[in-house]
């Protein structure tokens, strides 16, 4: 069994890394417009946000407000019309495995087994020599070990050789998470990863994600529309105003001790306070979709 992800981080550890790299991911004055038949449509304006290393940030807002657009910008799948995005002090100019994405609809390749889906990314990242850090190319055995470890991390060792069509929705999403984590990304980007799952499966995967993130000390940016999910998982909740031309309306710092437990938090006044703050923002301050000026 691989021990890559077995180290538990203590709360003070994380606080230290976060303080050392407060601007691990840095978004400066980003604006995004799309060209449509009726002219330019402004999706995002004036987005300034920095994410510390090891921090878990969720983006929340009504549908169509541009949360996914912002995530795509961080992923590099789209480039901003204005402003810059930096990851570890380097400009984001395109997609890459150091910013792995867990897609909403899992996006596993249906003709590959779970193992092969994960292996595809592992092979790309670790199968070639990395000149920048002087790491040699890893052997096939090492690559396979990494893949097995990632599948074990999400509890799918038994289903490794099944095709995506043969497993449940929750399991597919777990493979998606394994594929992303196996590449050891600097930032893990998740686009409503549990949105398509039923409530019980979603809760189970949220708990697993909490545990995995604790173990891997990942930096995570996650898009969600689920208030409880945001409060349960995040260090910070970034709330976007309604589109068009959405921007960051408010940010909630979540000071809840980790490890967090869904059950004990349910009656925690602090938790309920955060929850209320987010709900107030979403349903009182941003309840109506602004009309295009």
């Amino acid at each position: 069994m691989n021990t890559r992800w077995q180290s538990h981080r203590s709360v003070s550890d994380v606080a230290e890394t976060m303080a050392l790299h407060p601007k691990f991911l840095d978004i400066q004055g980003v604006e995004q417009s799309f060209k449509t038949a009726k002219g330019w449509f402004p999706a995002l304006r004036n987005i300034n946000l920095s994410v510390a290393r090891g921090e878990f940030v969720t983006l929340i807002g009504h549908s169509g407000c541009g949360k996914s657009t912002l995530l795509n910008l961080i992923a590099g799948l789209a480039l901003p019309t204005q402003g810059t995005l930096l990851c570890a002090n380097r400009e984001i100019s395109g997609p890459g495995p150091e910013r792995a994405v867990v897609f909403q609809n899992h996006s596993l390749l249906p003709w590959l087994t779970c193992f092969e889906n994960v292996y595809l990314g592992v092979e790309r990242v670790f199968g070639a020599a990395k000149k920048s850090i002087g790491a040699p190319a890893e052997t096939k055995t090492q690559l396979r070990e990494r893949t097995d470890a990632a599948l074990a991390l999400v509890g799918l060792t038994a289903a490794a050789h099944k095709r995506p069509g043969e497993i449940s929705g929750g399991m597919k999403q777990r493979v998606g998470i394994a594929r992303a984590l196996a590449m050891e990304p600097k930032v893990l980007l998740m686009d409503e990863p549990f949105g398509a799952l039923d409530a019980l499966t979603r809760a189970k995967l949220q708990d697993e994600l909490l545990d995995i993130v604790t173990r891997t000390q990942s930096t995570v940016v996650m898009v969600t529309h689920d208030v409880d999910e945001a409060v349960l998982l995040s260090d910070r909740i970034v709330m976007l105003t309604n589109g068009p031309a959405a921007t960051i309306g408010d940010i909630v710092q979540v000071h809840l001790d980790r490890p967090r437990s869904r059950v004990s938090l349910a009656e925690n006044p602090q938790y309920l306070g955060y929850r209320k703050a987010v709900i107030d923002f979403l349903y009182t301050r941003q309840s109506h979709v602004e009309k295009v000026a």
Partner: protein
Amino acid sequence: MSESAASTASGPAASPPTPAFDWRGMWLHVLPPILGLGLLVAIWALVSITSGSSIPGPLETGNQALTLFSDPFYRKGPNDQGVGWNVLMSLQRVALGFGLAALVGIPTGFLIGRSTFLSRMFNPLISLLRPVSPLAWLPIGLLVFKGANPAAIWTIFICSIWPMIINTAVGVQRVPQDYLNVARVLNLSEWKIVTKILFPAVLPYMLTGVRLAVGTAWLVIVAAEMLTGGVGIGFWVWDEWNNLNVKNIIIAIFVIGMVGLVLEMALIKLATAFTFEEVKS
């Protein structure tokens, strides 16, 4: 296990349950096709009787078929060979013409699917040439290749290439953006993108193209061989017409139908084996 469960449930006197033979299911699945075939034979017999035996009836044709199929691979000179040889020659022409069409058509389809420029460049050409009956190309083939056999293969090539190009191009254009995003995030090499994403995603479309192409080719070869002569099932039909051997013509119709059916079923089997749940939707 089920036996012990059954005995505890209904006492020691009960015998182990044997599933009753599903007569009803068999009835519904076997009877209609038999009735259909029976109807065909009945109409055939009726036509044969009313035409004053200028069209042979099912019984004599059946007897003739038995003697014919007892020795399908005989050779008595270039114009008198067994039905087996004729079918094999036709299949060989279809395979050659179709194979060449696949070699040219699949890469062309990929290029057209990937590039808007090429797609706009070739679409008018395809739209113009596709409706033309492939037999119209036969004289050109005879002129260029100076031989009946290559001209027939050329005709098959022309009729097979359009479905191959069009279906491959459509498949490439319909590769889900999600898969391409995965490729971009994983930063896959062009080779990996083609082998791990594009090709498997396009394969079901390509196989549809193959099925349509082979189906058309089998239709066209009979007509082409009637014109070109040589050994082949189409020529055989024409030859038997010249001999006024109507029984053999009817047998040929059945043989052509059977071979077409087998080709179609084999290709459908192949296509389902390579179609994945997510691609279908």
